[in-house]
C-alpha cells in the first residue's frame, strides 16, 4: 500500500488521538482520506458562496437568466410542455423553439433536485436550487477529480487534485453560486466521462465503458463542449494505436462507449443526427472504423502466422481502408450529407477566423484570445506545476497518463484561443499539477523518512540527531539531503499556501459579483449599490402592456425576458445574425430611418444602457461599434468609417456627424446635456468616457422618454404611434 503524503499532515496530537482509537494503519489512512475528501467537498461548496453572502441569492449575468427562466417553466409546466415549448417572447416576430434549441441537461438536473427536495418536504424555492446547482456540482467534481487522480497516479495525487480543483479560479469563474450556466454541470460531466473512459481503458470492463457512455450522454445534454470529448477520445485512441498500445481493453472501451454514447446523444433534439452527419464528429467515426480494421488485422495476423505475408496484407488493407474513408468523407461532404465545420469550430483552430468572418462571435469578450495575465490569474502556481506534472507523466507512461497528457496539451491550446475555454483546461491542469505536487512531496518525504528510519530516536528529537545519523548513514553522496528535503517541503507548503490565498482573493474580488447589481465605494468608504438593471426590468414588468415588444442590444435580451417578462426582438441566443444586424442597423441609423425599422418590427419600447452618469463603462455607447459592424455586415448602408473620425471613436464635439445623430447616441444622451455629473465639469460631462458630449440639444421626434433609472444606467423610450395624416 502506498503511503500518501497526507500522512504527514497528521499532527502529533491527531496521531495520538488515532492511536487511542486503536485503528490499524489502513483504517487510519482511510479515516484521514475520507475526512480530507469531506473537507474538500465542503470547501469547494462554501468558497463559491461569496456572492450570496455579499449580495443575495440571485442569478448572475446574462445566460443564466435564460436557464433560470426555462427551469421555472419546466418545474411549472412539466417535462413535455418544456420539450415542446415554442417561446414567442423572444426573437419577435420569429419566436424560438426552446425544446429543440437548447441543451436541457442543466435545467433537468436543477428541476430533478427541486422535485426531490420537494418530495422530501423541503420547502425550497426553485431559485435557491438554481443558485446552488453550480457549487453543488463543483463539489461533486472534486470527488471525480479524486478518483481520476487515483486512477492516473495514486490516491495521494487524487487528494491533491481534489483540493486543487476545489479552489482553482479557472473553474470557480464559471461555478460560483448564482452562475447558473451549462458549464456548471458540464465540467463535472466532462471529467466524469473522461474518468470513466480511462477506467474502462485500464480495466477493459464493459461496465465502466457503458458508464462512460452515460457520462457522455449527460455531457451532451448539458453543454455544446461535448464536441471536445468526441474529438479528444478518438485522438487519444489514435495515439494509442500509433504508439502500439492497441489492446483488447481499448477495443472494448472505445467501441462500446462510442456506439452507445452516439445513440444516447441522438436523443437530445438539439444534437440530433449530428454524430453521423456533421464534420465535427467524423473523427470519432473514422477511429471507430479504424479500430475494426485493427481488430481484423489482429485476427488475420493470428491466422497467417507469417510476418512477411502479413506485411503485404497490412499494406493493402490499410491503403484500401484509408482510401475508402477519404472517398466516403469526400462524397459525404460534396453531397451535403456531412455538414461542413461551423464557424465556432473554425475559430478554435484559427484564432483570427472569427475576427474576419463572424463579428458576432468576435464581439463577445469571452471569445477573445487569452492574455498571459489571465492564465496567471486563473491558474497561479499550477501554470508552473503543469510542465513538472507532464514530466512525471512522461516518466511513468501508461495508457492513463497518455490520456491526461493529451487532454492537458489540447485543452491548453484551446484555452489560449478563447478565454472561456480556460475552464475546459482547468481539470487537466489541476490533475497534472496534482501529480507533480504529490510525486514531489512523496519523494521528499521518503527522503526524510529514509534517514530517520535507521535512527530509533525518530524525527521528533530535532536537528541534533540529524548530524549523527547523517554520519552514520552509509549514503554519503548527499550530505544535506535531509535538510534539503525539509526545505523543499517547506517551499512546497509555502507555494500551496500562496495558491490558496490567491484563489480565495480572486474568487472574492473578481468572480463573485453578479453583474446585475453593481457595487461601488462611496465617498466615505461605504458601499453604494446601483440596482438600476432590476429597477428598469421591474418597471417594464409592472408598467408596460403585457404584449409590449422591447428592442435592445442582444446582450440584455435574456434578462429582459426573464426579469421584465416582456417580448424582445433579439437575445443572447445569437442564432439569427440578420435579425441582430437589423437591430444594429436601427441603432446606428438616423431617427426617422430607425423609426421605419422599428415600426416594421412592432417595437413598443427601446432600451439602452448608459453609463455616462455613473462611469459604468460596459454600456451601449462603448459597445456601439460592434452594432455598427454587425449591422454593416448584413446591410452595407451602414459603414463603420462614418462613425469614426480619422479612425478614432469619439462622442465629444469632434465626433463624426453621423455618430452625433444616430439613434443610439440620441437615446443615450437625451437631455443629458442639462445634467451636471461631476463637480467642476461642464454639464453633459460623460464620466464613462471622460469627455463633454458633442450634441447637447437632442430632440426626439418619434420616441419619448418612458423611464430612466435613478442612476441613469438604463433608459427606456416609448415608440410613438405614427402621426395622424391630417
Amino acid at each position, binding site marked *: 500500500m502506498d503511503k500518501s503524503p497526507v500522512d504527514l499532515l497528521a499532527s502529533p496530537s491527531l496521531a495520538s488521538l488515532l492511536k487511542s482509537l486503536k485503528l490499524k494503519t489502513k483504517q487510519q489512512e482511510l479515516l484521514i482520506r475520507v475526512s480530507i475528501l469531506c473537507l474538500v467537498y465542503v470547501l469547494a461548496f462554501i468558497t463559491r458562496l461569496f456572492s450570496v453572502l455579499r*449580495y*443575495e441569492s*440571485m442569478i448572475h449575468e446574462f445566460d443564466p437568466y435564460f436557464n433560470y427562466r426555462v427551469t421555472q417553466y419546466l418545474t411549472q409546466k412539466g417535462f413535455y410542455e418544456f420539450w415542446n415549448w415554442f417561446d414567442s417572447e423572444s426573437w419577435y416576430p420569429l419566436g424560438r423553439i426552446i425544446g429543440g434549441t437548447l441543451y436541457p441537461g442543466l435545467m433537468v438536473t436543477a428541476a430533478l433536485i427541486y422535485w426531490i427536495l420537494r418530495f*422530501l*418536504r*423541503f*420547502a425550497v424555492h426553485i431559485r435557491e436550487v438554481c443558485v446552488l446547482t453550480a457549487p453543488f456540482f463543483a463539489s461533486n467534481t472534486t470527488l471525480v477529480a479524486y478518483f481520476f487522480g487515483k486512477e492516473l497516479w495514486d490516491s495521494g495525487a487524487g487528494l491533491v487534485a481534489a483540493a486543487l480543483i476545489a479552489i482553482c479560479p479557472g473553474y470557480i469563474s464559471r461555478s460560483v453560486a448564482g452562475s447558473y450556466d451549462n458549464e456548471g454541470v458540464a465540467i463535472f460531466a466532462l471529467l466524469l466521462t473522461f474518468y470513466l473512459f480511462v477506467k474502462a481503458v485500464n480495466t477493459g470492463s464493459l461496465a465502466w465503458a457503458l458508464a462512460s457512455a452515460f457520462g457522455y450522454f449527460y455531457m451532451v445534454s448539458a453543454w455544446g463542449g461535448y464536441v471536445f470529448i468526441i474529438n479528444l477520445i478518438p485522438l487519444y485512441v489514435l495515439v494509442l494505436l500509433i504508439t502500439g498500445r492497441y489492446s483488447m481493453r481499448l477495443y472494448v472501451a472505445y467501441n462500446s462507449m462510442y456506439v452507445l454514447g452516439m445513440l444516447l446523444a441522438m436523443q437530445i433534439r438539439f444534437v440530433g443526427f449530428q454524430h453521423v452527419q456533421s464534420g465535427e464528429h467524423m473523427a470519432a467515426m473514422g477511429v471507430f472504423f479504424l479500430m475494426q480494421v485493427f481488430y481484423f488485422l489482429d485476427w488475420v495476423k493470428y491466422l497467417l502466422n507469417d510476418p512477411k505475408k502479413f506485411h503485404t496484407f497490412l499494406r493493402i488493407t490499410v491503403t484500401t481502408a484509408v482510401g475508402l474513408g477519404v472517398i466516403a468523407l469526400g462524397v459525404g461532404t460534396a453531397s451535403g450529407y456531412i455538414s461542413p465545420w461551423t464557424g465556432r469550430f473554425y475559430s478554435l483552430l484559427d484564432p483570427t477566423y472569427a475576427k474576419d468572418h463572424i463579428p458576432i462571435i468576435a464581439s463577445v469578450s469571452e471569445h477573445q484570445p487569452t492574455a498571459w495575465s489571465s492564465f496567471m490569474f486563473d491558474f497561479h502556481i499550477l501554470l508552473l506545476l503543469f510542465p513538472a506534472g507532464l514530466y512525471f507523466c512522461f516518466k511513468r507512461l501508461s495508457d492513463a497518463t497518455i490520456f491526461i497528457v493529451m487532454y492537458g496539451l489540447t485543452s491548453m491550446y484551446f484555452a489560449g484561443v478563447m478565454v472561456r475555454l480556460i475552464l475546459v483546461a482547468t481539470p487537466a491542469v489541476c490533475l497534472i499539477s496534482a501529480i507533480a505536487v504529490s510525486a514531489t512531496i512523496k519523494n521528499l518525504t521518503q527522503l526524510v523518512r529514509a534517514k530517520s528510519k535507521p535512527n530509533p530516536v525518530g524525527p521528533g528529537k530535532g536537528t541534533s540527531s540529524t548530524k549523527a545519523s547523517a554520519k552514520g548513514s552509509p549514503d554519503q553522496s548527499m550530505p544535506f539531503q535531509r535538510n534539503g528535503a525539509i526545505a523543499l517541503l517547506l517551499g512546497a507548503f509555502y507555494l500551496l499556501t500562496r495558491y490558496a490565498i490567491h484563489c480565495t482573493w480572486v474568487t472574492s474580488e473578481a468572480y463573485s459579483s453578479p453583474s*446585475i*447589481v453593481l457595487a461601488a465605494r462611496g465617498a466615505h468608504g461605504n458601499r453604494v*449599490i446601483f*440596482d438600476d438593471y*432590476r*429597477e428598469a*426590468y*421591474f*418597471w417594464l*414588468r*409592472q*408598467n408596460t402592456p403585457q404584449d409590449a415588444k422591447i428592442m435592445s442590444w442582444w446582450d440584455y435580451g435574456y434578462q429582459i425576458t426573464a*426579469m421584465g417578462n416582456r417580448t424582445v426582438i433579439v437575445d443572447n441566443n445569437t442564432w439569427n445574425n440578420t435579425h441582430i444586424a437589423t437591430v444594429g442597423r436601427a441603432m446606428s441609423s438616423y431617427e426617422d430611418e430607425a423609426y421605419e425599422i422599428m415600426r416594421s418590427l412592432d417595437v413598443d419600447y427601446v432600451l439602452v444602457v448608459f453609463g455616462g452618469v455613473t462611469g459604468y463603462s460596459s454600456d451601449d455607447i462603448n459597445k456601439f461599434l460592434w452594432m455598427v459592424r454587425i449591422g454593416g455586415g448584413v446591410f452595407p448602408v451602414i459603414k463603420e468609417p462614418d462613425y469614426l473620425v480619422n479612425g478614432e471613436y469619439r462622442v465629444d464635439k469632434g465626433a463624426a456627424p453621423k455618430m452625433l445623430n444616430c439613434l443610439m447616441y440620441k437615446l443615450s444622451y437625451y*437631455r443629458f446635456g*442639462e*445634467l451636471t455629473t461631476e463637480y467642476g465639469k461642464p454639464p453633459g460631462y460623460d464620466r464613462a468616457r471622460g469627455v463633454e458630449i458633442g450634441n447637447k440639444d437632442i430632440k426626439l421626434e418619434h420616441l*419619448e*422618454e*418612458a*423611464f*430612466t*433609472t*435613478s442612476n*441613469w444606467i438604463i433608459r427606456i423610450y416609448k415608440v410613438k404611434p405614427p402621426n395622424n395624416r391630417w
Partner: protein
Amino acid sequence: MAAIIFSLLALSLSFFTVISSSSLPGLQILQAERQIDLTSHIVRVYLTLKVENIEDAPASTVLLAFPPAQFDHLALVKAAATVGKKRKKSYVPLEVNPTEQPSSPNGTKYYAISLLKPLLKGETTTLEILYVFTHSLEPFPVEISQSESQLVYYHDSAIILSPYHIKQQATLVKIPSNKVESFTQVEPTHRSGNELRYGPFEDQHPYSYSPIIIHFENNNPFAVVEELEREIEVSHWGSVQVTEHYKLAHAGAKHKGVFSRVEYQSRPGGSGVSSFKHLLAELPPRVHSVYYRDDIGNISSSRLRTSSKKSELLIEPRYPLFGGWKATFVIGYGVPLQDFLFESSAGARYLNYSFGCPLADTVVDKLTIKVVLPEGSQDPSVEVPFAVKQSLETKYSYLDVIGRTVVVLEKKNVVPDHNVPFQVHYKFNPIFMLAEPLMLASAFFLFFITCVAYLHIDLSLRK
C-alpha cells in the same frame, strides 16, 4: 366635460326632496354635525347625532342611511354612545350591523346601530359615528403629466341622508390645501382656507338630499394595495414568521406621456408631486430578520428603525410610483413567539395578532390572512371583531407529513382602522414538536448504519 355638466344639473336640482311615506317614525334627530376629512385618499366622516325618541314605543336601534354608490365604498362604520356629562364624558362602543329596510327609497342602504338600552319616549342620546370611504375621490383630469398636480372630485350631499327628521345640521369639509378648483354652492356655504362649511340647515325632512361636488387638489399618495396576502406561520420553536405579499398601485390620476428623470431629480417639489417614493410600514417591536424583496430579488432601498415600542420599516419601491404605476413586493419578518402566542386553558393556545395592513395610510382592496398553525394542532377557531370570510387549508412545509392547518381569513376594503388584534385559538400537543428532529435524527442514523453495513459486507461475486 361631462362631469361639469352633471355638476350644473345637480346644482339646479338641489334641494329636491324625496317624499317618502315610509319615513321611519319614532325617532328624530335634534342636532347633527358632520365633519368630512378629505386630507388623504381615505375619506373619513365623523358624525355626531343627538337622537330623541318622540313616540311611545321604546327604540333600540338607530338607522344610518347611505346612498348605494357610497355604500359600495364603505370600508368601516363605527359608533359610540356618549355617556356622562362634560368632564366625565366617556365613549361606549356600540354594535353596528348592515340591515335591510322593507321599502328603501332609491335603493338606500342602511346600517343599524344597536343602542345600549332602549330609548324611551322623550329621552335623548348622543352618538359619535365614524365611517370611512375608500376610492371615493375621483381624479379629474383622469390623466396628468409629470409637471401637473392632481385634482380630484368628491361627491356627497350637503344635507345628511337620514331616514329621520333632522332639526338642525351642519357639515364641515376639510381639504388638504386651499387650492379648490370649484365647489357646489348651497346656501348657506362658507369657505375659509382649507375648510368648507355647509349649513346650518334647519328642519330637513327624511331622505332630503342635495348633491354637491368639490373639485380640489390632493397630492397625497393614493397608495392602494390591490391584493395583500399575509401569511403568519407559528412555530413552537420560538418564532412567528410573517410573510406579506403586496400588489401595490398608485390609484390617483394616471401618469401621461414622458417620465423625465432630469426633471424628477432636479425639481423635487415641482415635478411628479402626486407620485410617491416611499411608504412606511409599522411592524411589531422586537422584529427580526426583516426582508424586503420582489420576484426578481432583494430591493436594497429600505430602512428599519427599531425601538422597544414599535419598529418602523421605511420601504422604497424600485421606482417612484406615478399614477397608474404598479409594484409588487414581499415583506417578511420574524417576531418572538412569546409576544403573540398565549396559553388559555389546558392544552389550548391562542395567537393574538394584528389584522389589517401594516403600511400607513393605505387601502387594501382584498386582504387574505393565512394563519399557518404548527403541524398537529387541532380545533382552530377565530375571533375577529368584524365580519370576515373564513376557510381552512392544508399546507406542507419543511418535513411535514400530515400537513399544517391553515386558517384563511378574507376581507375586502380594508383601511388602517382595521388594524386591531384578532385571535386564533387552537389545541396543540407539545409532543408534536419532537417529530421533525426525531425524523432527521433517524434519517442520519439510517444513513450511517447503511455506511457501516456497506463497509462490513462483501458484495463481490468472486472470492
